[in-house]
């Protein structure tokens, strides 16, 4: 027990790099086990110190300081030349942004003036040949172009490769073609389609019950025929 205690002290003294106290020194001289322990541990610590010194005291190679000076020279040159490089980068960025924005404006669907005519033409081609749209009246197209809003964007033809295929019944197709053919002739319809939707105000809304006095039921075909006659 006494030796264990002394060996612990030996370790601590060696790790701290200190000097042995009188009592410890006396014990080591008297006890062969502790003396042997001390010699082993002292040798270990000497090896550790020698190893660490070998690791930490490498001379810098002769190329070190010239290398540092070379890198400083590069840094100084690049620092002095930062203004032209910076201005070149900005000019390049401006050119790229301008190019992209111009390209975007050209490719935008609403920038195409004949979108409505295209719709009418394509719808006509889809439907019956007889229902091909008449050439557009100049006055109505002018107003349509003027009010070229969100709805006309929805009507612009989509490339067939990008759009999913939709199966439409023959009668629906014909009705749609007929409807589109009427657009240039009826100004109200055209305006309703091309004007942007009115903004919704947050005002209070009054809801009252719908009152229907009389209901007249007509067959659908008759109603369509009446509408066509009008």
């Amino acid at each position: 027990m006494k030796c264990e205690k002394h060996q612990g002290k030996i370790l601590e003294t060696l790790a701290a790099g200190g000097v042995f106290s009188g009592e410890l020194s006396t014990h080591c001289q008297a006890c062969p086990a502790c003396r042997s322990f001390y010699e082993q541990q002292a040798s270990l610590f000497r090896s550790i110190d020698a190893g660490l010194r070998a690791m930490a005291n490498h001379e810098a190679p002769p190329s070190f300081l010239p290398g540092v000076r070379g890198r400083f020279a590069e840094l100084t040159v690049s620092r002095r030349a930062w203004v032209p490089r910076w201005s070149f980068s900005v000019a390049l960025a401006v050119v790229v942004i301008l190019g992209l924005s111009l390209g975007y404006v050209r490719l935008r669907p609403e920038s195409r003036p004949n979108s409505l005519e295209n719709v009418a033409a394509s719808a006509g081609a889809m439907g019956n040949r007889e229902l091909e749209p008449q050439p557009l009246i100049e006055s109505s197209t002018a107003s349509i172009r003027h009010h070229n809003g969100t709805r006309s964007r929805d009507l612009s033809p989509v490339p067939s490769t990008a759009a999913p295929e939709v199966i439409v019944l023959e009668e629906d197709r014909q009705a749609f073609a007929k409807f589109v053919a009427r657009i240039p002739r009826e100004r109200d319809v055209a305006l309703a389609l091309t004007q942007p939707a009115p903004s919704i105000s947050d005002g209070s809304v009054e809801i009252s019950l719908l009152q229907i006095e009389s209901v007249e039921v007509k067959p659908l075909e008759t109603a369509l025929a009446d509408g066509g006659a009008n």
Partner: protein
Amino acid sequence: MQELALIHQGEILERDAAREAERSRRDREFEARVVECGPLAFRVAQGVLRNAADAEDVAQEALLRAYRKFDRLRDVTRFRGWLVRISFRLALDRWRSARRRERRETEWSLPERRPAPPTAEEIAVSNQFQARLEQALDEMPEKFRIVLLLAAIQGYTLEEVAGMLGVPTGTVKSRLFLARKQLAEKLR
């Protein structure tokens, strides 16, 4: 008006000359610091990386970083400690990434491509203790590692090491004591 313009131009020239003089004074001062502390930065990096080429590169990088921020250093006497810390941190980063790469390559390499294990003779020939010491040092916490390295560099007292690390001398002593004890336990 013309006189005013001339006076103004003269002021600008004077200001430019003063700025240039200040810059060259600073460069001279930094050059002196590089000559004084550059080798120390190299030793710290070498102590961590144990590869002269890598250590040279890291020490140069540390000096460049120090140069870029030299204006911000108010107390120039702290330059040495500052550089030592930059160098140690950069060296550790490089050492870690090298170790990660090494591990990845070992994991991905086919068994037949792996280097053959050293023979008994090779082990006997190589300095086994040094290898074990290096491995034990690599496993130590950073704060112990740098204290051991700096204390082992010749020519610096513990007070100077404490100054470099910006900690009290007592802290350096206690860290050194614990680090040496841990090393001895690992190598026993």
